[in-house]
């Protein structure tokens, strides 16, 4: 009862007019920055954090929560509309969101994305409210052994994303892993695969890579359609046609609900992050969803799963942040800095020592999620008009966004060089039918997998049995083996059945 009282008190504070407008401003700016290719949620929250210091702590905290959430919402906009993910988790959203936009339904894709984000975020916050401290302890059970096993499951699951030609998908995945090995070795700190270049010492920067491989490759591809009168079917670019039908609402609810729960649990694992949450949620939908095999062709279920998983993970990341003082991601670290500046000292005793502040923050998350949804839905009618712009005008405009976005990633021309090279490379990949998403996801997940795998083997003095000695990793390894061997087992069973007939 005490929790409910504190939460209701938090709501009473959060719903004042001043706080409402602060949250709305935070939501609007957060969506804009989140949608900006090359900025992403980490840089977005960091850039906008100083704005919150102009307000009193409560208002600042609400604005901070709105900024955090809206950055997650915003990443999907550019991914759906121009196929350039605003941040890493939005890579998964674009797999179905952009094909939907190409079919002339960008509004539907964005509505789905926003509503699923809201559902995922709400599930995450509700779970955080009920079992926040316990959830944080669950996350702490994931040491190097468990993380390596989880990442191995994620990597193997890339097979579900590989599309029609598994060989091409595997080439893309392995190439992504190799690109991720360039730069400093995360375990020893020694440089490797830098080819004598000081620029490659810290590896290939991710933002120019993603902007180039998705965005600039798209520009090169658009040269084929620039003289066509319409790039996309723009007949349905009205608010009314963007709304979801009752059937579509029924289709998105199950993936959004289960992905929200999965995403929350992924989010509490330190280092797993929203990308893993969005990725595993999409894969789960592909595997168990009613029309899972159709994902990737412009299905609302795909958009819903990715966005709900992403926002569930974003909310789940608050559990270790508040209860243990451990940020689950770079964005979490920036948030932690912001909370410390407001006098909130996250840690194991936070829920007991500073209940007003903690529950106030949790109430702010609810409010921020609602306000971000309202702002995000209000933007849709204006933002979808972007698709009415002909390809021949879009080419120089998207090119400039790619150039400025990749430069701003590390304020260096090197970013532009990487972006251009990645753009040309991505174009060839697309032309030859190699999927891009597995390459990028492998690039993101591989360092975590390698680091944890090697640390696990260091702990066990090189014995692989350690993966079977810990309960969580043993379950994951069994799941992994079952997943890998299931096609073979199915084939054998099929043959036995045919033979017996």
């Amino acid at each position, binding site marked *: 009862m005490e929790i409910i009282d504190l939460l209701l008190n938090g709501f009473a504070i959060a719903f004042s007019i001043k706080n409402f407008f602060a949250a709305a401003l935070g939501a609007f700016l957060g969506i804009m920055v989140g949608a900006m290719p090359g900025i992403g949620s980490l840089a977005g929250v960091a850039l906008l954090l100083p704005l919150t210091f102009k307000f009193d702590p409560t208002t600042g905290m609400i604005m901070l929560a709105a900024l955090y959430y809206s950055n997650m919402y915003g990443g999907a906009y550019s991914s759906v509309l121009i196929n350039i993910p605003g941040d890493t988790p939005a890579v998964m959203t674009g797999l179905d969101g952009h094909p939907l936009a190409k079919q002339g339904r960008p509004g539907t894709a964005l509505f789905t994305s926003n509503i699923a984000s809201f559902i995922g975020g709400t599930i995450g916050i509700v779970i955080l409210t009920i079992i926040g401290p316990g959830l944080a302890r669950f996350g702490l059970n994931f040491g190097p052994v468990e993380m390596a096993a989880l990442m191995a499951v994620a990597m193997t699951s890339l097979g579900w994303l590989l599309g029609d030609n598994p060989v091409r998908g595997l080439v893309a995945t392995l190439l992504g892993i190799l690109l991720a*090995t360039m730069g400093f070795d995360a375990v020893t700190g020694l440089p490797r695969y830098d080819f004598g270049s000081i620029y490659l010492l810290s590896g290939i920067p991710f933002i120019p890579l993603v902007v180039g491989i998705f965005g600039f490759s798209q520009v090169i591809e658009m040269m084929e359609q620039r003289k066509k009168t319409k790039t996309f079917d723009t007949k349905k670019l009205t608010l009314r046609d963007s709304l979801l039908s009752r059937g579509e609402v029924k289709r998105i609810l199950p993936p959004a609900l289960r992905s929200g729960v999965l995403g929350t649990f992924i989010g509490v694992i330190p280092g797993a992050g929203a990308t893993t949450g969005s990725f595993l949620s999409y894969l789960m939908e592909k595997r168990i969803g009613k029309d899972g095999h159709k994902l990737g062709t412009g299905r609302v279920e795909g958009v819903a799963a990715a966005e709900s998983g992403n926002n569930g993970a974003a909310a789940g990341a608050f559990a270790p942040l508040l209860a243990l003082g451990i940020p689950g991601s770079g964005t979490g670290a920036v948030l932690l800095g912001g909370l410390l500046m407001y006098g909130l000292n996250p840690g194991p005793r936070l829920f007991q020592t500073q209940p007003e502040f903690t529950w106030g923050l949790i109430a702010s998350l609810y409010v921020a999620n609602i306000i971000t949804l309202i702002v995000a839905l209000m933007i849709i009618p204006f933002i979808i008009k972007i698709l009415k712009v002909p390809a021949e*005008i879009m080419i120089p405009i998207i090119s400039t966004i790619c150039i400025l976005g990749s*430069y701003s990633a590390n*304020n260096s021309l090197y970013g532009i060089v990487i972006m251009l090279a990645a*753009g040309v490379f991505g174009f060839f990949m697309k032309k030859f039918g190699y999927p891009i998403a597995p390459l990028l996801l492998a690039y993101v997940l591989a360092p975590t997998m390698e680091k944890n795998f090697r640390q696990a083997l260091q702990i066990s003095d090189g014995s692989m049995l350690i993966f079977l000695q810990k309960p969580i990793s043993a379950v994951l390894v069994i799941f992994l083996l079952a997943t890998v061997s299931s096609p073979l087992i199915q084939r054998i069973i099929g043959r036995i059945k045919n033979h017996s007939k």
Partner: protein
Amino acid sequence: MKRLNSRVIFPIITGIVGVLWIIIGLTNHDWWVEGRPQSGFFPSIVGGLLLFISFLAVINELKEEKTVFLLSHIYPVLAAVGMVVLAQLVGFFPALILYVFGWLKWFEKYRLVFSTLTALITGAAMYGIFYMWLRVPFPEGLILKLI
């Protein structure tokens, strides 16, 4: 004999990358010391896998249709490189405006007024977002520095 199509180039390149990663992993870095995997272990194993899968991909691609490329595919790359070079002289935002204007006016044959307005609006929007709001320090350009 059937002619090789351009599709095989991609897996051949990825196969070469795989070989390179194996060689560097085995020669420049430690592999396994005192029962523990080192820097070269993971990359060279993945390199080996990539080499094997690339070989399968080459066989796969031989059966596929040829891919068609247009000369115009290279134009956005050349234009972007040109813009970056121009940016070193006149600064980022003037170069951006000139690039958008030039593309629309001379390449796409739009009217002067439309091209100018689109270039100025794009330049102003980018300046407002990236320079004024996000405070990204773009280089000024050689000419401005000399002035």
